[in-house]
């Protein structure tokens, strides 16, 4: 065993990268859930974003266009969910699960011609002076732009929810849609927008995997990350910064367990592999003392009956 081989600065830097796809998807889902919509189709939207982003990046040669396409792809799939749940008033849990099934299939169909191709490179930001600082430079300033965009999104969502009128309306719709409706807010329209935002973010998260983290296209490559993102939203009790914290915690434990293995720590590997999930449960239990609860209308069907 040689724990000195683990470099804490590098560990921090990698956990931020490992956490980014989950973070992107989770922050989108947070907005949807704050508006009272529970979309379990995150995994399906992520994988669709992964292939849309990949295909467009390969065709155009531009990762930025790829990310834009991923957001659009995720949003289009989310639109399907919006139609089902907001227009056809279908059950949200079942619709979300169906969306995941559909997205996995659809992405595989689109991706048939993209196996074994290398996407254009997405360069790391090279910040001159800051990036060269010891420790801090690598941890804070040595990443790719998407990682910062993800964090900026968290901040943006926080500001929106906390300080803006739009955020207030969104929360009102999520807490009590009948009251919000009575006040003259367009509940369905607001929810559809929130769902689309969630889809776009999930798409970005998927594309981060297919364009930055892995980068390649293979069927089913998101491998369950979408579910973790869903868990994170509740984990973060619907608060943006807590979601960020949760994502880093989860990413951190994942990376740490690999680090411990490589360093030869003699804990049975399967227990190490379980650890991110067990720690999540543990933190959930601790956090449940905190009484912040889900948006009151979460998952409920809204119908404006006169």
């Amino acid at each position, binding site marked *: 065993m040689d724990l000195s081989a683990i470099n804490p600065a590098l*560990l921090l830097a990698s956990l931020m990268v490992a956490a980014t796809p989950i973070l992107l998807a989770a922050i989108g889902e947070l907005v949807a859930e704050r508006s009272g919509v529970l979309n379990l189709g995150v995994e399906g939207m992520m994988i669709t974003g992964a292939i849309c982003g990949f295909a467009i990046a390969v065709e155009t040669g531009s990762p930025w266009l790829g990310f834009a396409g991923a957001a659009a792809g995720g949003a289009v799939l989310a639109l399907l969910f919006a139609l089902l749940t907001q227009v056809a008033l279908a059950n949200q849990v079942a619709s979300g699960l169906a969306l995941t099934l559909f997205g996995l299939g659809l992405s595989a169909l689109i991706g048939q011609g993209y196996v074994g191709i290398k996407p254009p490179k997405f360069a790391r930001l090279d910040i001159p002076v800051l990036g060269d600082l010891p420790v801090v430079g690598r941890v804070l300033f040595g990443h790719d732009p998407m990682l910062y965009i993800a964090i900026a999104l968290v901040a943006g969502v926080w500001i929106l929810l906390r300080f803006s009128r739009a955020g207030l309306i969104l929360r009102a719709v999520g807490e009590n849609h009948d009251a919000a409706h009575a006040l003259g807010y367009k509940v369905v329209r607001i929810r559809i927008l929130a769902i689309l935002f969630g889809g776009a973010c999930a798409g970005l998260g998927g594309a981060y995997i297919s364009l930055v*983290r*892995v980068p390649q296209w293979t069927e089913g490559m998101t491998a369950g990350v979408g579910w973790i993102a869903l868990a994170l939203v509740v984990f973060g009790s619907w608060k943006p910064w807590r979601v960020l914290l949760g994502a880093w915690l989860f990413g951190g434990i*994942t990376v740490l367990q690999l680090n411990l293995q490589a360093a030869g720590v003699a804990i049975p590997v399967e227990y190490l592999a379980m650890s991110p999930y067990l720690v999540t449960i543990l933190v959930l239990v601790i956090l449940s003392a905190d009484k912040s609860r889900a948006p009151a209308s979460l998952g409920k069907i809204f119908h404006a009956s006169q």
Partner: protein
Amino acid sequence: MKFTSLLVGGALALGMATGAMAQDDKAKVGFIYVGPIGDGGYTFEHDQARKAVVEKFGDKVETTYVESVPEGPDAERVMTQMALNGADLIFATSFGFMDATVNTAKKFPDVKFEHATGYKTAPNLAIYNARFYEGRAIQGLIAGEMTESNIVGYIGSYPIPEVIRGMNSAFIHARKVNPDVQFKIVWAYTWFDPAKEADAAKVLIEQGADVILQHTDSTAPLAAAEAAGNVIGFGQASDMGEYADGPRVTSIIDNWAPYYIERVNAVIDGTWETSDTWAGIGDGMVEIGEITDRVPAEVKAEALELKDKIASGEYHPYTGPLNKQDGTPWLAEGEIADDQTLLGMDFFVEGITAEMPK
């Protein structure tokens, strides 16, 4: 209701006896895959071999395949269905299909079955596998020669004999050319999760590894190596040639095509017999991808020499003297490991410091 089902069952049993007769002279060949053909790795290569069969025999064969079949009852149903539809030969391409294949083979004595990487045979059930560890020996040699930090990272899926055999083989040959080399081993505990493979590769690189070996199918570790700059890696299952201008110095390619063509041919000729094939570099089932210029010429020559010696049978990668990890003697000087031990390998050889997960 029950009575009619029984009747149908009886009719079915009759149908099974005759159903296998091909209606026309076309050989019908079925393939069942454990993953999607778009996985770019294991299943992809099996499907490439299926396409090679089609190309070779043209309209003398008709191939069908079903992808992403879970093991267990689903696999058995898919194979039964292929047999009912008149398949003459069925390739079950994953270890997990073993018992399902045995069961189906029992039900259809006239249909031929081929099961990859298993160990159960029958008069109409043959098994085949590739000696990937031969390719690992070459990778180990290159790794041992090229590492400067003397740390080689190895990403494994699960601690099963197939993976352990490759690790030992790579380690033995790395040590032969570089007595100071150390292996750092990370088990992903998944067959397929590209993001996790990327993380694992990064962790190994951060802990000083400058050569990454992988027993997982995605290119994620190669991308991580490329991002790190001065790290090399290898293609796994497929050539992964898209990284040839970067970290990928050579590769192990699963080339099932020659075997599939041979077996289909045997069915067409009526000469098919059950067999137990464990083929390696010499038979072309394990292919070594082109060694790039990043490898110094003398190392490349050394690697190619090792490849030729293995291919000709002059040298076996598991030749004594070798001890097990705890120091107990395993193979004496010049002794060659028997296939039975290799097939069930569940121990590391001496020198590997990592502990085998229990």
